[in-house]
Protein backbone atom coordinates (compact mmCIF):
# COMPACT_ATOMS: atom_id res chain seq x y z
CA UNK A 1 0.00 0.00 0.00
CA UNK A 2 2.99 2.28 0.27
CA UNK A 3 2.71 3.67 -3.23
CA UNK A 4 -0.89 4.59 -2.60
CA UNK A 5 -0.23 5.91 0.88
CA UNK A 6 2.42 8.22 -0.50
CA UNK A 7 0.38 9.36 -3.49
CA UNK A 8 0.02 13.17 -3.29
CA UNK A 9 0.80 12.91 0.38
CA UNK A 10 3.41 15.63 0.51
CA UNK A 11 2.09 17.74 -2.32
CA UNK A 12 -1.32 18.51 -0.90
CA UNK A 13 -1.40 21.75 1.09
CA UNK A 14 -3.26 22.01 4.37
CA UNK A 15 -6.55 23.85 4.64
CA UNK A 16 -5.94 27.58 4.78
CA UNK A 17 -7.05 29.59 7.78
CA UNK A 18 -9.35 31.59 5.50
CA UNK A 19 -11.04 28.50 4.13
CA UNK A 20 -11.44 27.06 7.62
CA UNK A 21 -12.92 30.30 8.91
CA UNK A 22 -15.33 30.55 5.99
CA UNK A 23 -16.49 26.95 6.38
CA UNK A 24 -16.85 27.33 10.12
CA UNK A 25 -18.79 30.56 9.65
CA UNK A 26 -21.24 28.78 7.39
CA UNK A 27 -21.74 26.09 9.98
CA UNK A 28 -22.22 28.65 12.75
CA UNK A 29 -24.80 30.46 10.64
CA UNK A 30 -26.75 27.22 10.33
CA UNK A 31 -26.38 26.57 14.05
CA UNK A 32 -27.41 30.02 15.19
CA UNK A 33 -30.38 30.59 12.92
CA UNK A 34 -32.80 28.07 14.33
CA UNK A 35 -36.34 27.96 13.11
CA UNK A 36 -39.04 25.82 11.74
CA UNK A 37 -37.57 23.72 8.98
CA UNK A 38 -40.05 23.26 6.23
CA UNK A 39 -39.47 21.80 2.83
CA UNK A 40 -39.41 24.06 -0.17
CA UNK A 41 -41.85 22.92 -2.77
CA UNK A 42 -40.10 20.99 -5.49
CA UNK A 43 -40.66 22.20 -8.99
CA UNK A 44 -39.52 21.60 -12.52
CA UNK A 45 -37.64 24.79 -13.17
CA UNK A 46 -33.92 24.81 -13.79
CA UNK A 47 -32.20 25.29 -10.53
CA UNK A 48 -30.78 28.70 -11.23
CA UNK A 49 -34.20 29.88 -12.23
CA UNK A 50 -35.62 28.46 -9.07
CA UNK A 51 -33.00 30.15 -6.97
CA UNK A 52 -33.70 33.58 -8.26
CA UNK A 53 -37.42 33.17 -8.31
CA UNK A 54 -37.15 31.96 -4.76
CA UNK A 55 -35.31 35.08 -3.77
CA UNK A 56 -37.80 37.13 -5.66
CA UNK A 57 -40.56 35.29 -3.90
CA UNK A 58 -39.04 36.16 -0.61
CA UNK A 59 -38.92 39.83 -1.31
CA UNK A 60 -42.04 40.45 -3.24
CA UNK A 61 -44.93 41.59 -1.15
CA UNK A 62 -47.26 41.45 -4.11
CA UNK A 63 -47.93 38.52 -6.39
CA UNK A 64 -45.32 38.44 -9.10
CA UNK A 65 -47.90 39.01 -11.78
CA UNK A 66 -48.79 42.22 -10.05
CA UNK A 67 -45.23 43.39 -10.11
CA UNK A 68 -44.34 42.09 -13.49
CA UNK A 69 -47.32 42.95 -15.48
CA UNK A 70 -48.50 40.48 -18.04
CA UNK A 71 -46.17 41.34 -20.87
CA UNK A 72 -42.62 40.83 -19.91
CA UNK A 73 -40.32 42.28 -22.48
CA UNK A 74 -37.27 41.52 -20.47
CA UNK A 75 -36.19 37.93 -20.89
CA UNK A 76 -36.82 36.14 -17.64
CA UNK A 77 -33.53 34.41 -18.23
CA UNK A 78 -31.96 37.77 -17.60
CA UNK A 79 -33.13 37.45 -14.07
CA UNK A 80 -32.38 33.79 -13.84
CA UNK A 81 -28.77 33.96 -14.76
CA UNK A 82 -26.50 31.96 -16.95
CA UNK A 83 -27.58 28.53 -15.78
CA UNK A 84 -31.14 28.83 -16.92
CA UNK A 85 -31.76 26.40 -19.70
CA UNK A 86 -35.47 26.73 -20.06
CA UNK A 87 -36.53 28.57 -23.20
CA UNK A 88 -37.57 32.11 -22.53
CA UNK A 89 -40.98 31.63 -24.03
CA UNK A 90 -41.65 28.76 -21.71
CA UNK A 91 -41.39 31.16 -18.82
CA UNK A 92 -43.02 34.26 -20.14
CA UNK A 93 -45.61 33.04 -22.51
CA UNK A 94 -46.44 35.16 -25.50
CA UNK A 95 -46.64 38.90 -25.11
CA UNK A 96 -50.11 40.27 -24.84
CA UNK A 97 -51.03 41.97 -28.06
CA UNK A 98 -52.00 45.61 -27.94
CA UNK A 99 -50.44 46.44 -24.60
CA UNK A 100 -47.95 49.25 -24.33
CA UNK A 101 -44.35 48.19 -24.27
CA UNK A 102 -42.75 47.84 -20.91
CA UNK A 103 -41.70 51.06 -19.37
CA UNK A 104 -38.56 51.68 -17.50
CA UNK A 105 -40.63 51.46 -14.39
CA UNK A 106 -41.98 48.08 -15.30
CA UNK A 107 -38.53 46.78 -15.91
CA UNK A 108 -37.63 48.23 -12.58
CA UNK A 109 -40.44 46.36 -10.97
CA UNK A 110 -39.44 43.10 -12.50
CA UNK A 111 -36.01 43.05 -11.19
CA UNK A 112 -34.95 40.65 -8.54
CA UNK A 113 -34.04 42.24 -5.28
CA UNK A 114 -30.65 41.01 -4.40
CA UNK A 115 -27.35 42.78 -3.81
CA UNK A 116 -26.14 46.37 -3.72
CA UNK A 117 -22.97 48.29 -4.44
CA UNK A 118 -22.45 50.90 -1.81
CA UNK A 119 -18.71 50.76 -1.87
CA UNK A 120 -17.21 50.56 -5.30
CA UNK A 121 -14.08 48.65 -6.01
CA UNK A 122 -12.20 50.49 -8.68
CA UNK A 123 -9.29 48.97 -10.50
CA UNK A 124 -9.13 46.17 -7.98
CA UNK A 125 -8.70 48.47 -5.01
CA UNK A 126 -11.30 48.37 -2.33
CA UNK A 127 -12.46 51.83 -1.47
CA UNK A 128 -12.97 51.79 2.24
CA UNK A 129 -15.57 54.12 3.56
CA UNK A 130 -14.65 53.88 7.17
CA UNK A 131 -15.95 56.58 9.44
CA UNK A 132 -14.85 57.09 13.01
CA UNK A 133 -13.76 53.57 13.93
CA UNK A 134 -14.29 53.84 17.66
CA UNK A 135 -17.87 54.94 17.51
CA UNK A 136 -20.44 52.83 19.26
CA UNK A 137 -22.70 50.59 17.20
CA UNK A 138 -25.53 52.47 15.53
CA UNK A 139 -28.33 52.96 17.98
CA UNK A 140 -31.17 53.75 15.65
CA UNK A 141 -32.23 53.29 12.08
CA UNK A 142 -31.94 57.05 11.55
CA UNK A 143 -28.33 56.90 12.66
CA UNK A 144 -27.67 53.97 10.35
CA UNK A 145 -29.18 55.89 7.45
CA UNK A 146 -27.14 58.97 8.25
CA UNK A 147 -23.83 57.16 8.64
CA UNK A 148 -24.36 55.10 5.49
CA UNK A 149 -25.24 58.31 3.66
CA UNK A 150 -22.09 60.03 4.87
CA UNK A 151 -19.98 57.09 3.81
CA UNK A 152 -21.56 57.31 0.35
CA UNK A 153 -20.92 61.05 0.18
CA UNK A 154 -17.30 60.64 1.22
CA UNK A 155 -16.65 57.90 -1.32
CA UNK A 156 -13.43 59.04 -3.03
CA UNK A 157 -14.10 56.90 -6.11
CA UNK A 158 -13.77 59.03 -9.24
CA UNK A 159 -16.98 59.43 -11.19
CA UNK A 160 -16.97 56.81 -13.93
CA UNK A 161 -17.47 57.79 -17.55
CA UNK A 162 -20.89 57.34 -19.15
CA UNK A 163 -19.57 54.53 -21.34
CA UNK A 164 -18.32 52.47 -18.40
CA UNK A 165 -20.05 49.61 -16.61
CA UNK A 166 -20.60 48.51 -13.04
CA UNK A 167 -19.68 44.85 -12.64
CA UNK A 168 -21.21 43.04 -9.65
CA UNK A 169 -20.84 39.47 -8.50
CA UNK A 170 -22.77 37.93 -5.67
CA UNK A 171 -23.18 34.66 -3.88
CA UNK A 172 -26.77 33.49 -3.48
CA UNK A 173 -28.02 30.80 -1.15
CA UNK A 174 -31.50 29.49 -0.61
CA UNK A 175 -32.79 27.05 1.90
CA UNK A 176 -34.81 27.09 5.04
CA UNK A 177 -34.33 28.62 8.44
CA UNK A 178 -31.56 26.80 10.22
CA UNK A 179 -30.07 25.59 6.93
CA UNK A 180 -29.85 28.44 4.50
CA UNK A 181 -27.53 26.56 2.20
CA UNK A 182 -29.80 23.61 1.75
CA UNK A 183 -31.28 24.11 -1.67
CA UNK A 184 -29.22 26.36 -3.86
CA UNK A 185 -25.86 28.00 -4.02
CA UNK A 186 -24.91 30.10 -6.97
CA UNK A 187 -22.89 33.08 -8.01
CA UNK A 188 -24.52 35.71 -10.16
CA UNK A 189 -22.57 38.17 -12.26
CA UNK A 190 -24.06 41.20 -13.89
CA UNK A 191 -22.99 44.34 -15.69
CA UNK A 192 -25.05 47.52 -15.75
CA UNK A 193 -24.03 50.56 -17.75
CA UNK A 194 -23.19 53.66 -15.77
CA UNK A 195 -25.76 55.60 -17.80
CA UNK A 196 -28.41 53.10 -16.76
CA UNK A 197 -29.39 52.27 -20.31
CA UNK A 198 -28.20 48.72 -20.60
CA UNK A 199 -27.38 45.68 -18.55
CA UNK A 200 -25.69 42.42 -19.45
CA UNK A 201 -25.00 38.93 -18.17
CA UNK A 202 -23.44 35.71 -19.45
CA UNK A 203 -25.71 32.97 -20.60
CA UNK A 204 -24.32 29.78 -22.05
CA UNK A 205 -20.94 31.45 -22.46
CA UNK A 206 -22.45 34.27 -24.48
CA UNK A 207 -22.84 37.84 -23.30
CA UNK A 208 -26.50 38.83 -23.38
CA UNK A 209 -27.76 42.40 -23.24
CA UNK A 210 -31.04 43.89 -22.32
CA UNK A 211 -32.32 47.33 -23.05
CA UNK A 212 -32.51 49.19 -19.83
CA UNK A 213 -31.14 48.95 -16.37
CA UNK A 214 -33.19 49.81 -13.33
CA UNK A 215 -34.10 53.49 -13.37
CA UNK A 216 -32.54 56.30 -15.23
CA UNK A 217 -29.77 57.45 -12.88
CA UNK A 218 -29.64 60.82 -14.59
CA UNK A 219 -33.28 61.37 -13.72
CA UNK A 220 -32.62 60.54 -10.07
CA UNK A 221 -29.60 62.87 -10.03
CA UNK A 222 -31.51 65.94 -11.26
CA UNK A 223 -31.20 68.62 -8.60
CA UNK A 224 -32.36 69.15 -6.02
CA UNK A 225 -31.57 65.65 -4.78
CA UNK A 226 -33.43 64.99 -1.53
CA UNK A 227 -34.60 61.83 0.21
CA UNK A 228 -38.22 62.80 -0.20
CA UNK A 229 -37.55 63.60 -3.84
CA UNK A 230 -35.92 60.30 -4.75
CA UNK A 231 -38.63 58.37 -2.91
CA UNK A 232 -41.28 60.30 -4.82
CA UNK A 233 -39.62 59.47 -8.14
CA UNK A 234 -39.38 55.78 -7.30
CA UNK A 235 -42.96 55.63 -6.07
CA UNK A 236 -44.15 57.41 -9.18
CA UNK A 237 -42.35 54.85 -11.34
CA UNK A 238 -43.91 51.94 -9.42
CA UNK A 239 -47.38 53.46 -9.57
CA UNK A 240 -46.98 54.22 -13.25
CA UNK A 241 -46.17 50.59 -13.86
CA UNK A 242 -49.11 49.47 -11.75
CA UNK A 243 -51.39 51.84 -13.57
CA UNK A 244 -50.41 50.39 -16.94
CA UNK A 245 -50.44 46.83 -15.72
CA UNK A 246 -52.21 45.03 -12.93
CA UNK A 247 -53.78 48.07 -11.20
CA UNK A 248 -53.61 46.49 -7.79
CA UNK A 249 -51.94 49.17 -5.73
CA UNK A 250 -54.71 51.77 -5.44
CA UNK A 251 -52.20 54.56 -5.53
CA UNK A 252 -50.32 53.30 -2.48
CA UNK A 253 -46.88 51.74 -2.69
CA UNK A 254 -46.45 49.17 0.09
CA UNK A 255 -43.31 49.74 2.20
CA UNK A 256 -41.98 46.30 1.34
CA UNK A 257 -42.08 47.05 -2.35
CA UNK A 258 -40.40 50.40 -1.89
CA UNK A 259 -37.69 48.79 0.23
CA UNK A 260 -37.13 46.20 -2.47
CA UNK A 261 -36.84 48.80 -5.19
CA UNK A 262 -34.36 50.92 -3.29
CA UNK A 263 -32.35 47.83 -2.55
CA UNK A 264 -32.29 46.94 -6.23
CA UNK A 265 -31.10 50.38 -7.17
CA UNK A 266 -28.22 50.49 -4.77
CA UNK A 267 -27.37 46.89 -5.56
CA UNK A 268 -26.84 46.88 -9.26
CA UNK A 269 -26.77 50.44 -10.50
CA UNK A 270 -23.99 52.96 -10.27
CA UNK A 271 -25.44 56.08 -8.65
CA UNK A 272 -24.02 59.52 -8.02
CA UNK A 273 -22.88 59.86 -4.38
CA UNK A 274 -25.63 62.34 -3.51
CA UNK A 275 -28.32 60.04 -4.93
CA UNK A 276 -26.95 57.09 -3.03
CA UNK A 277 -26.79 59.17 0.14
CA UNK A 278 -30.36 60.35 -0.38
CA UNK A 279 -31.54 56.75 -0.69
CA UNK A 280 -29.88 55.87 2.60
CA UNK A 281 -31.45 58.82 4.34
CA UNK A 282 -34.77 57.84 2.81
CA UNK A 283 -34.78 54.28 4.17
CA UNK A 284 -35.43 55.27 7.84
CA UNK A 285 -38.41 57.33 6.70
CA UNK A 286 -40.18 54.31 5.24
CA UNK A 287 -42.80 52.99 7.59
CA UNK A 288 -41.69 49.88 9.47
CA UNK A 289 -37.99 49.97 8.67
CA UNK A 290 -35.84 49.41 11.76
CA UNK A 291 -32.25 48.58 12.55
CA UNK A 292 -31.05 45.05 13.41
CA UNK A 293 -27.55 44.21 14.61
CA UNK A 294 -25.44 41.23 13.66
CA UNK A 295 -27.28 39.80 10.68
CA UNK A 296 -25.46 37.21 8.52
CA UNK A 297 -25.06 37.38 4.74
CA UNK A 298 -24.45 34.46 2.37
CA UNK A 299 -20.69 34.17 2.86
CA UNK A 300 -20.82 34.23 6.65
CA UNK A 301 -19.98 37.88 7.20
CA UNK A 302 -22.26 39.75 9.58
CA UNK A 303 -23.33 43.32 9.71
CA UNK A 304 -25.85 45.93 10.74
CA UNK A 305 -29.07 45.92 8.77
CA UNK A 306 -32.01 47.96 7.66
CA UNK A 307 -34.84 45.55 8.35
CA UNK A 308 -38.48 45.38 7.47
CA UNK A 309 -40.99 42.79 8.55
CA UNK A 310 -44.44 42.72 7.07
CA UNK A 311 -47.09 40.03 7.10
CA UNK A 312 -45.27 38.01 4.47
CA UNK A 313 -41.54 38.62 4.55
CA UNK A 314 -38.79 39.62 6.94
CA UNK A 315 -35.96 41.19 4.98
CA UNK A 316 -32.61 42.76 5.76
CA UNK A 317 -30.28 45.00 3.79
CA UNK A 318 -26.95 44.47 5.51
CA UNK A 319 -23.99 46.83 5.79
CA UNK A 320 -20.56 46.47 7.30
CA UNK A 321 -20.90 47.83 10.86
CA UNK A 322 -17.71 49.88 10.57
CA UNK A 323 -17.32 50.93 6.97
CA UNK A 324 -21.01 50.82 5.95
CA UNK A 325 -19.93 48.98 2.89
CA UNK A 326 -22.76 46.92 1.44
CA UNK A 327 -22.51 43.23 2.41
CA UNK A 328 -25.65 41.52 1.18
CA UNK A 329 -29.25 40.65 1.92
CA UNK A 330 -31.11 38.14 4.06
CA UNK A 331 -34.82 37.38 3.73
CA UNK A 332 -37.22 34.92 5.26
CA UNK A 333 -40.68 34.20 4.00
CA UNK A 334 -43.17 34.26 6.88
CA UNK A 335 -46.29 33.14 5.07
CA UNK A 336 -46.85 30.63 2.31
CA UNK A 337 -47.39 32.34 -0.99
CA UNK A 338 -48.18 30.89 -4.38
CA UNK A 339 -47.01 32.83 -7.39
CA UNK A 340 -48.46 32.51 -10.79
CA UNK A 341 -45.95 32.99 -13.57
CA UNK A 342 -46.62 34.38 -16.99
CA UNK A 343 -46.91 30.92 -18.49
CA UNK A 344 -49.64 30.05 -15.97
CA UNK A 345 -47.34 27.75 -14.03
CA UNK A 346 -47.51 28.16 -10.28
CA UNK A 347 -44.87 28.06 -7.63
CA UNK A 348 -45.33 28.04 -3.89
CA UNK A 349 -42.87 29.52 -1.47
CA UNK A 350 -43.31 28.08 1.97
CA UNK A 351 -43.07 29.99 5.17
CA UNK A 352 -39.57 29.45 6.47
CA UNK A 353 -37.90 29.70 3.06
CA UNK A 354 -34.72 31.72 3.42
CA UNK A 355 -32.63 33.51 0.83
CA UNK A 356 -29.22 35.03 1.50
CA UNK A 357 -26.93 36.98 -0.78
CA UNK A 358 -23.44 38.38 -0.38
CA UNK A 359 -21.76 40.84 -2.64
CA UNK A 360 -18.38 39.46 -3.64
CA UNK A 361 -17.36 42.09 -6.21
CA UNK A 362 -18.43 45.56 -7.30
CA UNK A 363 -16.17 47.44 -9.64
CA UNK A 364 -16.18 49.79 -12.58
CA UNK A 365 -14.98 48.24 -15.84
CA UNK A 366 -14.70 49.58 -19.36
CA UNK A 367 -16.88 47.03 -21.11
CA UNK A 368 -19.66 44.63 -20.30
CA UNK A 369 -18.25 41.16 -19.75
CA UNK A 370 -15.01 42.41 -18.23
CA UNK A 371 -14.24 41.50 -14.67
CA UNK A 372 -11.41 43.94 -14.10
Amino acid sequence: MNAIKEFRRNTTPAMTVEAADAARARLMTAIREPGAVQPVTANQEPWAARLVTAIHGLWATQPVTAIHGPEATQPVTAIHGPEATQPVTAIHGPRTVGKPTATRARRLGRRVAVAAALALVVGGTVVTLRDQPDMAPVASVAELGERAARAAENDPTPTPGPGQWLYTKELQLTGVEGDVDRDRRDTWERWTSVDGKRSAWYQGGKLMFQGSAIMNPTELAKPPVTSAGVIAKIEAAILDEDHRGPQELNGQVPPGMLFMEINQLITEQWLAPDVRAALFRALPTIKGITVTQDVPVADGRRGVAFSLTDAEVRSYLILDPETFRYLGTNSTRLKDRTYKWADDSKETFKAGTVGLTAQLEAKIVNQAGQRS
Partner: protein
Amino acid sequence: MSAETVEIDDGELIRRSAHDPEQFAALFDRYAKQIHLYAARRLGTQAADDIVAETFLAAFRRRGTYDTSFALARPWLYGIATTLIARHRRQEERLLRALSRTGVDPLPEALADTVTRRVTAQGRDRELAGALAALPRGHRDVLLLVAWEDMSYEEVARALDISVGTVRSRLHRARKKARNVLGDEEL
Protein backbone atom coordinates in the same frame (compact mmCIF):
# COMPACT_ATOMS: atom_id res chain seq x y z
CA MET B 1 -6.77 16.73 21.12
CA SER B 2 -4.47 16.87 24.08
CA ALA B 3 -4.12 13.81 26.24
CA GLU B 4 -4.48 15.49 29.60
CA THR B 5 -7.93 16.95 29.09
CA VAL B 6 -10.86 14.63 29.36
CA GLU B 7 -13.06 15.31 26.39
CA ILE B 8 -16.51 14.12 25.73
CA ASP B 9 -16.70 11.83 22.74
CA ASP B 10 -18.27 12.68 19.39
CA GLY B 11 -21.40 10.68 20.04
CA GLU B 12 -22.02 12.56 23.26
CA LEU B 13 -21.35 15.89 21.55
CA ILE B 14 -23.89 15.10 18.88
CA ARG B 15 -26.38 13.97 21.50
CA ARG B 16 -25.97 17.25 23.39
CA SER B 17 -26.19 19.25 20.19
CA ALA B 18 -29.84 18.24 19.88
CA HIS B 19 -30.61 20.76 22.61
CA ASP B 20 -27.47 22.86 22.47
CA PRO B 21 -26.61 23.15 18.77
CA GLU B 22 -23.42 25.11 19.38
CA GLN B 23 -21.83 21.96 20.77
CA PHE B 24 -21.74 20.71 17.22
CA ALA B 25 -19.04 23.23 16.31
CA ALA B 26 -16.53 21.14 18.27
CA LEU B 27 -16.84 18.42 15.64
CA PHE B 28 -15.71 20.89 13.03
CA ASP B 29 -12.65 21.72 15.09
CA ARG B 30 -11.84 18.04 15.48
CA TYR B 31 -12.21 16.90 11.90
CA ALA B 32 -12.33 19.75 9.37
CA LYS B 33 -8.61 19.77 8.64
CA GLN B 34 -8.21 16.07 8.03
CA ILE B 35 -11.31 15.89 5.88
CA HIS B 36 -10.00 18.83 3.91
CA LEU B 37 -6.72 17.05 3.30
CA TYR B 38 -8.54 13.95 2.16
CA ALA B 39 -10.77 15.89 -0.25
CA ALA B 40 -7.90 18.07 -1.48
CA ARG B 41 -5.85 14.98 -2.23
CA ARG B 42 -8.62 13.75 -4.45
CA LEU B 43 -9.85 17.00 -6.02
CA GLY B 44 -7.60 19.93 -5.13
CA THR B 45 -7.94 22.46 -2.36
CA GLN B 46 -10.53 24.64 -4.00
CA ALA B 47 -13.09 21.86 -4.30
CA ALA B 48 -12.04 20.69 -0.84
CA ASP B 49 -12.93 24.08 0.66
CA ASP B 50 -16.53 23.63 -0.46
CA ILE B 51 -16.67 19.98 0.41
CA VAL B 52 -15.59 20.60 3.98
CA ALA B 53 -18.14 23.37 4.45
CA GLU B 54 -20.92 21.31 2.94
CA THR B 55 -19.95 18.19 4.86
CA PHE B 56 -20.46 19.90 8.19
CA LEU B 57 -23.65 21.64 7.14
CA ALA B 58 -25.08 18.31 5.99
CA ALA B 59 -23.85 16.59 9.13
CA PHE B 60 -25.42 19.27 11.30
CA ARG B 61 -28.81 18.91 9.73
CA ARG B 62 -28.63 15.12 9.83
CA ARG B 63 -27.34 14.96 13.38
CA GLY B 64 -30.66 13.62 14.59
CA THR B 65 -30.06 10.41 12.66
CA TYR B 66 -26.61 9.78 14.13
CA ASP B 67 -26.36 6.68 16.32
CA THR B 68 -24.77 8.28 19.37
CA SER B 69 -23.59 4.92 20.65
CA PHE B 70 -20.72 5.30 18.18
CA ALA B 71 -18.13 7.31 20.05
CA LEU B 72 -16.26 8.42 16.93
CA ALA B 73 -18.06 10.42 14.26
CA ARG B 74 -15.09 10.25 11.92
CA PRO B 75 -16.43 7.51 9.61
CA TRP B 76 -19.80 9.23 9.44
CA LEU B 77 -18.24 12.55 8.45
CA TYR B 78 -15.93 10.90 5.91
CA GLY B 79 -18.95 9.16 4.48
CA ILE B 80 -20.71 12.48 3.93
CA ALA B 81 -17.57 13.98 2.44
CA THR B 82 -17.15 10.99 0.15
CA THR B 83 -20.69 11.38 -1.11
CA LEU B 84 -19.95 15.02 -1.90
CA ILE B 85 -16.69 14.03 -3.61
CA ALA B 86 -18.66 11.62 -5.75
CA ARG B 87 -20.34 14.56 -7.44
CA HIS B 88 -16.93 15.43 -8.84
CA ARG B 89 -16.14 11.95 -10.09
CA ARG B 90 -15.44 13.01 -13.66
CA GLN B 91 -13.19 15.82 -12.53
CA GLU B 92 -11.28 13.51 -10.22
CA GLU B 93 -10.72 10.99 -12.99
CA ARG B 94 -9.75 13.68 -15.45
CA LEU B 95 -7.10 14.99 -13.05
CA LEU B 96 -5.75 11.51 -12.47
CA ARG B 97 -5.59 10.73 -16.18
CA ALA B 98 -3.78 13.99 -16.84
CA LEU B 99 -1.18 13.11 -14.22
CA SER B 100 -0.85 9.66 -15.71
CA ARG B 101 -0.41 11.03 -19.19
CA THR B 102 1.89 13.98 -18.54
CA GLY B 103 3.67 13.26 -15.29
CA VAL B 104 2.51 16.67 -14.01
CA ASP B 105 -0.13 16.65 -11.34
CA PRO B 106 -2.73 19.17 -12.42
CA LEU B 107 -4.17 19.62 -8.95
CA PRO B 108 -4.14 23.38 -9.23
CA GLU B 109 -2.46 24.35 -5.98
CA ALA B 110 1.27 24.04 -5.97
CA LEU B 111 3.20 25.05 -2.90
CA ALA B 112 6.59 26.48 -3.75
CA ASP B 113 8.52 23.59 -2.24
CA THR B 114 6.45 20.98 -3.97
CA VAL B 115 6.90 22.23 -7.49
CA THR B 116 9.99 20.21 -8.16
CA ARG B 117 8.41 17.08 -6.92
CA ARG B 118 5.32 17.83 -8.91
CA VAL B 119 6.99 18.26 -12.24
CA THR B 120 9.12 15.22 -11.77
CA ALA B 121 6.36 12.93 -10.62
CA GLN B 122 7.74 9.45 -10.55
CA GLY B 123 6.75 6.87 -13.08
CA ARG B 124 5.17 4.97 -10.21
CA ASP B 125 2.79 7.85 -9.42
CA ARG B 126 1.89 8.20 -13.06
CA GLU B 127 0.99 4.54 -13.31
CA LEU B 128 -0.87 4.65 -10.05
CA ALA B 129 -2.87 7.68 -11.14
CA GLY B 130 -3.90 5.83 -14.27
CA ALA B 131 -4.94 2.83 -12.21
CA LEU B 132 -6.92 4.98 -9.73
CA ALA B 133 -8.68 6.76 -12.58
CA ALA B 134 -9.75 3.44 -14.01
CA LEU B 135 -11.23 2.08 -10.76
CA PRO B 136 -14.97 2.16 -10.22
CA ARG B 137 -15.69 5.00 -7.84
CA GLY B 138 -16.89 2.76 -5.03
CA HIS B 139 -13.67 0.79 -5.19
CA ARG B 140 -11.57 3.94 -5.19
CA ASP B 141 -13.49 5.21 -2.14
CA VAL B 142 -12.70 2.05 -0.20
CA LEU B 143 -9.07 1.94 -1.28
CA LEU B 144 -8.36 5.56 -0.37
CA LEU B 145 -10.17 5.49 2.97
CA VAL B 146 -8.09 2.47 3.95
CA ALA B 147 -4.79 3.63 2.47
CA TRP B 148 -4.88 7.32 3.26
CA GLU B 149 -7.10 7.52 6.30
CA ASP B 150 -6.10 4.27 8.00
CA MET B 151 -9.71 3.25 8.49
CA SER B 152 -10.61 -0.24 9.56
CA TYR B 153 -12.94 -2.30 7.37
CA GLU B 154 -15.71 -1.70 9.88
CA GLU B 155 -15.19 2.05 9.76
CA VAL B 156 -15.18 2.07 5.96
CA ALA B 157 -18.36 0.01 5.99
CA ARG B 158 -20.00 2.57 8.26
CA ALA B 159 -18.72 5.51 6.23
CA LEU B 160 -19.98 4.18 2.92
CA ASP B 161 -23.02 2.38 4.30
CA ILE B 162 -21.97 -0.95 2.81
CA SER B 163 -21.26 -4.32 4.40
CA VAL B 164 -17.84 -5.32 5.67
CA GLY B 165 -17.88 -8.08 3.07
CA THR B 166 -18.32 -5.51 0.32
CA VAL B 167 -15.45 -3.50 1.74
CA ARG B 168 -13.24 -6.58 1.61
CA SER B 169 -14.15 -7.51 -1.92
CA ARG B 170 -13.80 -3.98 -3.25
CA LEU B 171 -10.46 -3.56 -1.58
CA HIS B 172 -9.28 -6.89 -2.93
CA ARG B 173 -10.20 -5.95 -6.47
CA ALA B 174 -8.82 -2.44 -6.22
CA ARG B 175 -5.50 -3.76 -4.92
CA LYS B 176 -5.36 -6.35 -7.63
CA LYS B 177 -5.73 -3.69 -10.30
CA ALA B 178 -3.14 -1.47 -8.69
CA ARG B 179 -0.82 -4.45 -8.39
CA ASN B 180 -1.11 -5.07 -12.10
CA VAL B 181 0.37 -1.68 -12.84
CA LEU B 182 2.78 -1.35 -9.94
CA GLY B 183 4.15 -4.82 -9.52
CA ASP B 184 3.58 -7.28 -6.69
CA GLU B 185 6.01 -5.84 -4.20
CA GLU B 186 4.01 -2.65 -3.72
CA LEU B 187 0.81 -4.05 -2.34
